[in-house]
Protein backbone atom coordinates (compact mmCIF):
# COMPACT_ATOMS: atom_id res chain seq x y z
CA UNK A 1 0.00 0.00 0.00
CA UNK A 2 1.31 3.42 -0.94
CA UNK A 3 2.32 5.60 2.00
CA UNK A 4 0.83 9.10 1.69
CA UNK A 5 2.69 10.34 4.74
CA UNK A 6 -0.30 10.02 7.00
CA UNK A 7 0.16 8.39 10.37
CA UNK A 8 -2.47 5.75 10.83
CA UNK A 9 -2.96 4.71 14.44
CA UNK A 10 -3.22 1.02 15.20
CA UNK A 11 -6.30 -0.38 16.93
CA UNK A 12 -4.25 -0.75 20.11
CA UNK A 13 -3.24 2.89 20.06
CA UNK A 14 -6.82 3.98 19.40
CA UNK A 15 -8.00 1.90 22.34
CA UNK A 16 -5.31 3.40 24.58
CA UNK A 17 -6.13 6.94 23.48
CA UNK A 18 -9.83 6.31 24.04
CA UNK A 19 -9.18 4.88 27.49
CA UNK A 20 -7.02 7.86 28.46
CA UNK A 21 -9.68 10.27 27.29
CA UNK A 22 -12.34 8.39 29.26
CA UNK A 23 -10.12 8.40 32.34
CA UNK A 24 -9.42 12.12 31.99
CA UNK A 25 -13.14 12.76 31.73
CA UNK A 26 -13.85 10.65 34.79
CA UNK A 27 -11.15 12.39 36.81
CA UNK A 28 -12.40 15.78 35.78
CA UNK A 29 -15.99 15.00 36.60
CA UNK A 30 -15.71 12.71 39.61
CA UNK A 31 -15.78 15.55 42.09
CA UNK A 32 -18.88 17.17 40.62
CA UNK A 33 -22.06 16.55 42.53
CA UNK A 34 -25.29 15.74 40.75
CA UNK A 35 -28.56 15.65 42.65
CA UNK A 36 -30.90 15.46 39.67
CA UNK A 37 -30.79 13.41 36.47
CA UNK A 38 -29.36 14.78 33.23
CA UNK A 39 -31.44 16.45 30.55
CA UNK A 40 -33.10 13.99 28.19
CA UNK A 41 -34.19 15.27 24.80
CA UNK A 42 -36.51 12.31 24.24
CA UNK A 43 -38.36 13.05 27.47
CA UNK A 44 -38.77 16.69 26.48
CA UNK A 45 -40.12 15.65 23.06
CA UNK A 46 -42.47 13.10 24.63
CA UNK A 47 -43.87 15.73 27.01
CA UNK A 48 -44.49 18.18 24.14
CA UNK A 49 -46.14 15.47 22.06
CA UNK A 50 -48.31 14.32 24.95
CA UNK A 51 -49.35 17.87 25.71
CA UNK A 52 -50.45 18.27 22.08
CA UNK A 53 -52.44 15.06 22.30
CA UNK A 54 -54.22 16.19 25.47
CA UNK A 55 -54.84 19.70 24.11
CA UNK A 56 -56.35 18.31 20.92
CA UNK A 57 -58.60 16.02 22.94
CA UNK A 58 -59.79 18.83 25.21
CA UNK A 59 -60.59 21.04 22.21
CA UNK A 60 -62.64 18.23 20.73
CA UNK A 61 -64.33 17.67 24.08
CA UNK A 62 -65.20 21.35 24.36
CA UNK A 63 -66.73 21.42 20.88
CA UNK A 64 -68.73 18.25 21.32
CA UNK A 65 -69.72 18.52 24.99
CA UNK A 66 -73.35 17.62 25.48
CA UNK A 67 -73.63 16.12 21.98
CA UNK A 68 -73.76 12.41 21.16
CA UNK A 69 -70.36 12.61 19.40
CA UNK A 70 -68.87 13.97 22.60
CA UNK A 71 -70.09 11.18 24.85
CA UNK A 72 -67.63 9.18 26.91
CA UNK A 73 -68.46 6.03 25.01
CA UNK A 74 -67.49 7.61 21.68
CA UNK A 75 -64.26 9.19 22.97
CA UNK A 76 -63.24 6.41 25.35
CA UNK A 77 -60.40 5.23 23.10
CA UNK A 78 -58.65 8.62 23.36
CA UNK A 79 -58.36 8.18 27.11
CA UNK A 80 -56.54 4.90 26.61
CA UNK A 81 -54.20 6.42 24.01
CA UNK A 82 -53.14 9.18 26.38
CA UNK A 83 -52.92 6.72 29.27
CA UNK A 84 -50.56 4.59 27.21
CA UNK A 85 -48.39 7.61 26.35
CA UNK A 86 -48.34 8.61 30.03
CA UNK A 87 -47.29 5.10 30.97
CA UNK A 88 -44.41 5.24 28.45
CA UNK A 89 -43.33 8.61 29.81
CA UNK A 90 -43.51 7.33 33.38
CA UNK A 91 -41.32 4.37 32.44
CA UNK A 92 -38.78 6.63 30.73
CA UNK A 93 -38.64 8.98 33.72
CA UNK A 94 -38.51 6.20 36.31
CA UNK A 95 -35.64 4.49 34.48
CA UNK A 96 -33.40 7.52 34.99
CA UNK A 97 -31.59 7.86 38.29
CA UNK A 98 -32.31 10.85 40.52
CA UNK A 99 -35.49 11.63 38.69
CA UNK A 100 -38.04 11.15 41.48
CA UNK A 101 -39.53 14.62 41.18
CA UNK A 102 -40.43 14.10 37.55
CA UNK A 103 -41.88 10.67 38.26
CA UNK A 104 -44.12 12.29 40.87
CA UNK A 105 -45.16 14.91 38.31
CA UNK A 106 -46.15 12.28 35.75
CA UNK A 107 -48.09 10.43 38.45
CA UNK A 108 -50.04 13.62 39.22
CA UNK A 109 -50.84 14.18 35.54
CA UNK A 110 -51.98 10.56 35.28
CA UNK A 111 -54.26 11.03 38.28
CA UNK A 112 -55.68 14.15 36.66
CA UNK A 113 -56.28 12.25 33.46
CA UNK A 114 -58.23 9.61 35.40
CA UNK A 115 -60.22 12.36 37.12
CA UNK A 116 -60.99 13.96 33.76
CA UNK A 117 -62.37 10.67 32.49
CA UNK A 118 -64.43 10.31 35.66
CA UNK A 119 -65.83 13.82 35.13
CA UNK A 120 -66.62 12.94 31.52
CA UNK A 121 -68.52 9.84 32.60
CA UNK A 122 -70.50 11.92 35.09
CA UNK A 123 -71.28 14.55 32.44
CA UNK A 124 -69.07 17.43 31.35
CA UNK A 125 -70.34 20.72 29.95
CA UNK A 126 -68.31 23.00 27.66
CA UNK A 127 -67.99 25.67 30.36
CA UNK A 128 -66.13 23.20 32.60
CA UNK A 129 -63.37 22.58 30.04
CA UNK A 130 -61.27 25.83 30.17
CA UNK A 131 -60.08 25.40 33.80
CA UNK A 132 -59.31 21.76 33.06
CA UNK A 133 -57.28 22.73 30.00
CA UNK A 134 -55.39 25.31 32.04
CA UNK A 135 -54.61 22.70 34.69
CA UNK A 136 -53.13 20.31 32.13
CA UNK A 137 -51.20 23.11 30.40
CA UNK A 138 -49.71 24.23 33.70
CA UNK A 139 -48.72 20.68 34.63
CA UNK A 140 -47.07 19.90 31.29
CA UNK A 141 -45.27 23.25 31.31
CA UNK A 142 -43.96 22.49 34.80
CA UNK A 143 -42.59 19.11 33.71
CA UNK A 144 -40.95 20.61 30.64
CA UNK A 145 -39.50 23.50 32.60
CA UNK A 146 -37.82 21.13 35.01
CA UNK A 147 -36.50 19.00 32.14
CA UNK A 148 -35.04 22.04 30.36
CA UNK A 149 -33.47 23.27 33.58
CA UNK A 150 -31.44 20.05 33.71
CA UNK A 151 -29.36 21.23 30.76
CA UNK A 152 -25.96 21.76 32.25
CA UNK A 153 -22.83 23.25 30.71
CA UNK A 154 -22.62 22.27 27.06
CA UNK A 155 -25.89 20.33 26.99
Amino acid at each position, binding site marked *: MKDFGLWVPSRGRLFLAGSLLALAYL*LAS*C*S*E*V*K*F*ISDYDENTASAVIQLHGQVEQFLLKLEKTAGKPEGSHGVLEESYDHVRLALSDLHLRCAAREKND*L*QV*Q*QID*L*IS*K*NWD*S*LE*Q*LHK*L*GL*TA*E*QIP*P*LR*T*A*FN*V*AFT*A*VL*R*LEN*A*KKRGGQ
Partner: protein
Amino acid sequence: MALELTKLVTDMLSAARGVFEEKWPDVKDYAEAEFKKIGECLLMIERLKLQGKITEEQARLHLEIQKNSARTVLLTLEGLHILLVEEAINAALKIIRDAVNTALGWRLV
Protein backbone atom coordinates in the same frame (compact mmCIF):
# COMPACT_ATOMS: atom_id res chain seq x y z
CA MET B 1 -72.61 34.38 51.20
CA ALA B 2 -71.10 34.34 47.71
CA LEU B 3 -67.45 33.50 47.25
CA GLU B 4 -65.09 36.30 46.28
CA LEU B 5 -61.97 35.56 44.27
CA THR B 6 -59.72 38.22 45.80
CA LYS B 7 -60.55 37.15 49.35
CA LEU B 8 -60.06 33.48 48.53
CA VAL B 9 -56.64 34.12 46.98
CA THR B 10 -55.56 36.49 49.75
CA ASP B 11 -56.52 33.99 52.45
CA MET B 12 -54.71 31.14 50.69
CA LEU B 13 -51.59 33.27 50.17
CA SER B 14 -51.59 34.35 53.79
CA ALA B 15 -51.77 30.76 55.00
CA ALA B 16 -49.10 29.54 52.56
CA ARG B 17 -46.70 32.36 53.41
CA GLY B 18 -46.54 31.09 57.00
CA VAL B 19 -45.61 27.60 55.82
CA PHE B 20 -42.95 28.63 53.33
CA GLU B 21 -41.38 31.20 55.69
CA GLU B 22 -38.00 32.36 54.30
CA LYS B 23 -38.54 30.55 50.98
CA TRP B 24 -41.67 32.62 50.36
CA PRO B 25 -40.06 35.15 47.96
CA ASP B 26 -39.00 32.26 45.69
CA VAL B 27 -42.47 30.77 45.43
CA LYS B 28 -44.69 33.83 45.85
CA ASP B 29 -45.35 34.46 42.14
CA TYR B 30 -46.09 30.82 41.42
CA ALA B 31 -48.28 30.49 44.49
CA GLU B 32 -50.31 33.54 43.47
CA ALA B 33 -50.91 32.12 40.00
CA GLU B 34 -51.85 28.68 41.30
CA PHE B 35 -54.12 29.96 44.08
CA LYS B 36 -55.86 32.20 41.56
CA LYS B 37 -56.63 29.16 39.41
CA ILE B 38 -57.93 27.25 42.43
CA GLY B 39 -60.04 30.28 43.38
CA GLU B 40 -61.46 30.54 39.86
CA CYS B 41 -62.28 26.84 39.92
CA LEU B 42 -64.16 27.30 43.22
CA LEU B 43 -66.12 30.21 41.74
CA MET B 44 -67.04 28.05 38.74
CA ILE B 45 -68.20 25.30 41.10
CA GLU B 46 -70.29 27.79 43.04
CA ARG B 47 -71.85 29.14 39.84
CA LEU B 48 -72.63 25.68 38.50
CA LYS B 49 -74.07 24.59 41.84
CA LEU B 50 -76.43 27.55 41.87
CA GLN B 51 -77.54 26.52 38.39
CA GLY B 52 -77.96 22.91 39.53
CA LYS B 53 -75.38 21.75 36.98
CA ILE B 54 -72.79 20.10 39.21
CA THR B 55 -72.76 17.43 41.89
CA GLU B 56 -70.52 17.26 44.93
CA GLU B 57 -68.57 14.39 43.34
CA GLN B 58 -67.90 16.42 40.21
CA ALA B 59 -66.86 19.42 42.30
CA ARG B 60 -64.37 17.29 44.24
CA LEU B 61 -62.85 15.99 41.00
CA HIS B 62 -62.47 19.53 39.62
CA LEU B 63 -60.76 20.73 42.78
CA GLU B 64 -58.50 17.66 42.89
CA ILE B 65 -57.31 18.37 39.35
CA GLN B 66 -56.43 21.95 40.24
CA LYS B 67 -54.62 20.87 43.41
CA ASN B 68 -52.60 18.25 41.54
CA SER B 69 -51.69 20.82 38.90
CA ALA B 70 -50.42 23.18 41.62
CA ARG B 71 -48.41 20.33 43.17
CA THR B 72 -46.77 19.71 39.78
CA VAL B 73 -45.61 23.34 39.73
CA LEU B 74 -44.27 23.10 43.27
CA LEU B 75 -42.30 19.97 42.34
CA THR B 76 -40.65 21.94 39.54
CA LEU B 77 -39.74 24.69 42.00
CA GLU B 78 -38.24 22.07 44.29
CA GLY B 79 -36.23 20.70 41.36
CA LEU B 80 -35.00 24.16 40.37
CA HIS B 81 -33.94 24.79 43.95
CA ILE B 82 -32.00 21.50 44.05
CA LEU B 83 -30.31 22.33 40.73
CA LEU B 84 -29.29 25.70 42.15
CA VAL B 85 -27.76 24.05 45.22
CA GLU B 86 -25.95 21.59 42.95
CA GLU B 87 -24.58 24.43 40.82
CA ALA B 88 -23.41 26.33 43.90
CA ILE B 89 -21.58 23.30 45.34
CA ASN B 90 -19.90 22.53 42.01
CA ALA B 91 -18.84 26.16 41.57
CA ALA B 92 -17.37 26.13 45.08
CA LEU B 93 -15.48 22.89 44.45
CA LYS B 94 -14.18 24.13 41.12
CA ILE B 95 -12.70 27.28 42.56
CA ILE B 96 -10.60 25.39 45.16
CA ARG B 97 -9.84 22.33 43.01
CA ASP B 98 -6.37 23.27 41.74
CA ALA B 99 -5.13 24.62 45.06
CA VAL B 100 -6.33 21.62 47.08
CA ASN B 101 -5.22 19.00 44.58
CA THR B 102 -1.79 20.59 44.22
CA ALA B 103 -1.31 20.87 47.99
CA LEU B 104 -2.39 17.29 48.62
CA GLY B 105 -0.79 15.77 45.58
CA TRP B 106 -4.04 13.89 44.86
CA ARG B 107 -6.89 14.64 42.50
CA LEU B 108 -9.24 14.69 45.46
CA VAL B 109 -11.51 17.58 44.55
